[in-house]
């Protein structure tokens, strides 16, 4: 039988380091079912029979945050054999608060008193025996970073788990509360497993909605329990939940007083304090933040001599997937005398479909790795929390978090790592909202679209690119303002009560591992979703009616050289009517529709498709003003039509790679569809309003039914923005409890 050990602890307690230390490379990373919370599991090094389950970093086992609900559901339903509770020795009071809740579960607990090296350095002394006795569990001093004690703690936990020996639970609460809890225990005995009796009794005392719902006790029993609670509340003049929390902290204060001897550092500032004085200084904070962001962006996405991310991606696109991989397949597939070893269609499928399609996406891997590396470092040293602290004021107006700045900035390079970097946002609601809006920001691949039209239609005016960025930012802001008033977002209040952990040097192991995990999940996706969509599009583009345009000839299916004759053309013709209200009218309609469609592979495909559809082969530089394509495009696109097309393509569903990232981060198909649907709908409405109303002024569009619809839509958008927020956060916070839904 395997022994299951859960690893629990506060955020910033060194839990990740200890998990890596204990399991080494034996890890499985995924998500907790249906939620955006990451799940990690591994086997103890040298002990194949011990499974270590890493729980999310939490401060409490309340029913209010996703991470906490996930953790307590796991602990109660899967009951692990033992718990290792990681306690940051330098921040012992708040860390022990979670401990007092964990020991109530009746599962053997071993406290790993972590960062003990720092405790010693500060000159503090902690009496492990006294601490253990007061909490009814064993305490082992550890320093995960230095590899001290972790293994010992795990071995001890495994031993206790095998023996199923939980410690004696201490009486944490005062007389009348313990009395009430004892009464509740009595009345639910037999209805819950004996092991969890105290846990359930305390939760019932707290009137924990989730537990009340789970147990479904009958009315008379509930009112009996309620009597005991009411008596207590009256006696202490406080609500039950507060009574429990207060008394936990009171108990901890007592324990700490007897077991911890602090050498008061007095007024001396720690190094971390000194750094923080500068980094979050009223005047310097924003310039420092801007400088750090600029450096990160330049290294990963910029075009400077030190931009290693860009260099890597250029190399991957031009050399690896431009020469080496196609060359390798040529060697494999082409025999002596240039004779194909495989049917021609298979060769084309492999080279033009799979290698070109998947290669285009994998080309982003170097940039993603560099970016993830830098962000992991920021996170590991504790700067991420400061970013939220500095930027919170601006972003919360749009229903986003201070940390949303990073995904949005990163997305100007590429949306995929942008969406992936939403991981660092704690609140589920903020994270989802950021994922939904990150794709609006014009990424690197959308720049050629802007360049093409700026050149062809607007005489290379720099205002076109500028306006594109403003459109992107406006879309984020408008979406935020509208979405935060919807129930799905407003329903879950997101209190911004956040710890600012002390700065510390990054751990190379943690940073590299986190980087690799993110990079690898992207590569895996390229092998599945992106592979399939590349094949499908290649097929639609390369096959069609061989007899297209030949008078009197029937439809004959086969490979076609000209995309104008492909199945894609038929699809374009078939769906072009959808875009009629957007002003995509006449001969350009199907081309625009097809280009939008191929843009789903990668946004730069929009421009490539125009190249093909206007009969200029790929070699022609489309950005070059000598290119005759500009004249052809100019013939088809009026200025307002151009804007309508540009807006739609900048804002609508992102490329497959980004959609894959959305799916991965949302980890829920309903939310994924909602995100993509929102983007498409938003793009459509914005383009329609632009064309119909803008065109009316320039004379490009004529007054008609769609003009009326455009005005109605505009009024609707304005209404959604200014309407009163019926789920105003303050109201929700003050009235009723809102538990996190898993």
């Amino acid at each position, binding site marked *: 039988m395997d022994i299951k050990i859960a690893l629990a602890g506060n955020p910033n307690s060194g839990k990740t380091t200890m998990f890596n230390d204990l399991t080494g490379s034996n890890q499985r990373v995924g998500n907790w079912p249906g939620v955006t919370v990451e799940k990690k599991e591994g086997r103890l090094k040298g002990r194949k029979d011990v499974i270590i389950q890493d729980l999310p970093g939490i401060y409490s086992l309340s029913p209010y945050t996703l991470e906490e609900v996930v953790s307590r559901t796991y602990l109660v339903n899967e009951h692990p054999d033992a718990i290792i509770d990681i306690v940051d020795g330098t921040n012992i009071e708040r860390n022990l608060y979670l401990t007092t809740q964990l020991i109530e579960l009746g599962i053997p607990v071993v406290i790993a008193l972590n960062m003990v090296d720092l405790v010693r350095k500060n000159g503090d002394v902690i009496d492990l025996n006294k601490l253990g006795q007061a909490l009814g569990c064993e305490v082992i001093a550890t320093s995960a970073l230095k590899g001290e004690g972790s293994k010992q703690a795990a071995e001890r936990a495994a031993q206790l788990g095998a023996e199923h020996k939980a410690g004696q639970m201490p009486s944490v609460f005062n007389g009348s509360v313990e009395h009430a809890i004892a009464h509740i225990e009595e009345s639910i005995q037999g209805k819950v497993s004996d092991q969890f009796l105290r846990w359930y009794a305390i939760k019932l005392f707290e009137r924990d909605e989730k537990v009340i719902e789970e147990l479904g006790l009958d009315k008379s029993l509930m009112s009996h329990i309620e009597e005991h609670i009411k008596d207590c509340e009256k006696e202490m003049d406080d609500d039950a939940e507060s009574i429990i929390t207060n008394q936990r902290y009171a108990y901890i204060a007592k324990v700490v007083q007897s077991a911890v001897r602090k050498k008061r550092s007095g007024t001396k500032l720690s190094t971390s304090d000194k750094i923080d004085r500068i980094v*979050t200084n009223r005047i310097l904070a924003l310039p420092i933040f801007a400088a750090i962001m600029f450096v990160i962006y330049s290294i990963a996405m910029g075009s400077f001599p030190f931009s290693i991310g860009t260099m890597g991606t250029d190399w991957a696109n031009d050399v690896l997937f431009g020469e080496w991989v196609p060359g390798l397949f040529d060697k494999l597939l082409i025999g002596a005398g240039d004779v194909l070893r495989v049917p021609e269609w298979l060769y084309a499928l492999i080279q033009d479909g799979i290698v070109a399609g998947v290669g285009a996406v994998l080309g982003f891997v170097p940039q993603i790795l560099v970016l993830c590396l830098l962000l992991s470092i920021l996170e590991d040293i504790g700067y991420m929390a400061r970013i939220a602290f500095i930027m919170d004021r601006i972003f919360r107006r749009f229903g986003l978090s201070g940390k949303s700045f990073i995904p949005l900035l990163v997305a100007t390079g590429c949306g995929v790592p942008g969406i992936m970097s939403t991981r660092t946002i704690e609140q589920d609601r903020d994270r989802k909202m950021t994922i939904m809006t990150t794709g609006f920001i014009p990424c690197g691949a959308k720049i050629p679209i802007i360049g093409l039209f700026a050149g062809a239609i607007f005489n290379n005016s720099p205002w076109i690119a500028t306006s594109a960025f403003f459109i992107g930012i406006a879309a984020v802001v408008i979406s935020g303002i509208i979405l935060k008033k919807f129930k799905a977002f407003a329903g879950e209040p997101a209190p911004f009560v956040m710890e*600012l952990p002390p700065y510390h040097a990054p751990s190379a192991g943690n940073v590299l591992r986190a980087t690799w995990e993110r990079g690898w999940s992207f590569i895996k996706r390229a092998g599945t979703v992106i592979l399939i969509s590349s094949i499908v599009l290649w097929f639609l583009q390369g096959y069609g009616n061989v007899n297209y345009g030949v008078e009197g000839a029937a439809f004959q299916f086969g490979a076609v050289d000209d995309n104008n004759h492909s199945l894609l053309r038929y699809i374009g013709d078939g769906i072009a009517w959808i875009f009629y209200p957007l002003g995509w009218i006449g001969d350009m309609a199907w081309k625009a529709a097809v280009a939008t469609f191929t843009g789903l592979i990668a946004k730069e495909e929009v421009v490539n498709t125009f190249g093909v559809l206007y009969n200029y082969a790929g070699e022609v530089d489309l950005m070059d003003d000598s290119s005759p394509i500009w004249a052809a495009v100019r013939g088809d696109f009026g200025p307002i039509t151009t804007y309508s097309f540009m807006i739609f393509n900048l804002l609508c569903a992102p490329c497959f790679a980004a959609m894959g990232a959305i799916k991965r981060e949302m980890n829920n198909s309903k939310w994924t569809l909602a995100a993509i649907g929102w983007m498409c709908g938003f793009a459509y409405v914005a383009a329609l309003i632009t064309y119909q109303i803008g065109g009316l002024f320039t004379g490009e569009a004529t007054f008609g039914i769609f003009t009326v619809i455009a005005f109605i839509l505009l009024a609707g958008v304005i209404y959604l923005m200014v309407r009163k927020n019926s789920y105003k956060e303050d109201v929700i916070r003050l009235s009723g409890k809102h538990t996190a839904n898993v």
Partner: protein
Amino acid sequence: MKTLKDVKVGDTVTVVKLHGEGALKRRIMDMGVTRGTEVFVRKVAPLGDPIEVTVRGYELSIRKGDAQNIEVG
């Protein structure tokens, strides 16, 4: 009623009562801000909100709107 929001930077106060209920109140208490706790207001964010306080030996950031629910003396 004096709340944490009104406390000047550099001052230390004691929590008298927490107002409101539900998720926010519980979260604030879970972080160690309970009746009788000493809170030192350390700084205000560059844009004027949130604030940073020291409580139970660590640094906590809290929005002014939320700090309004914390009565201090």
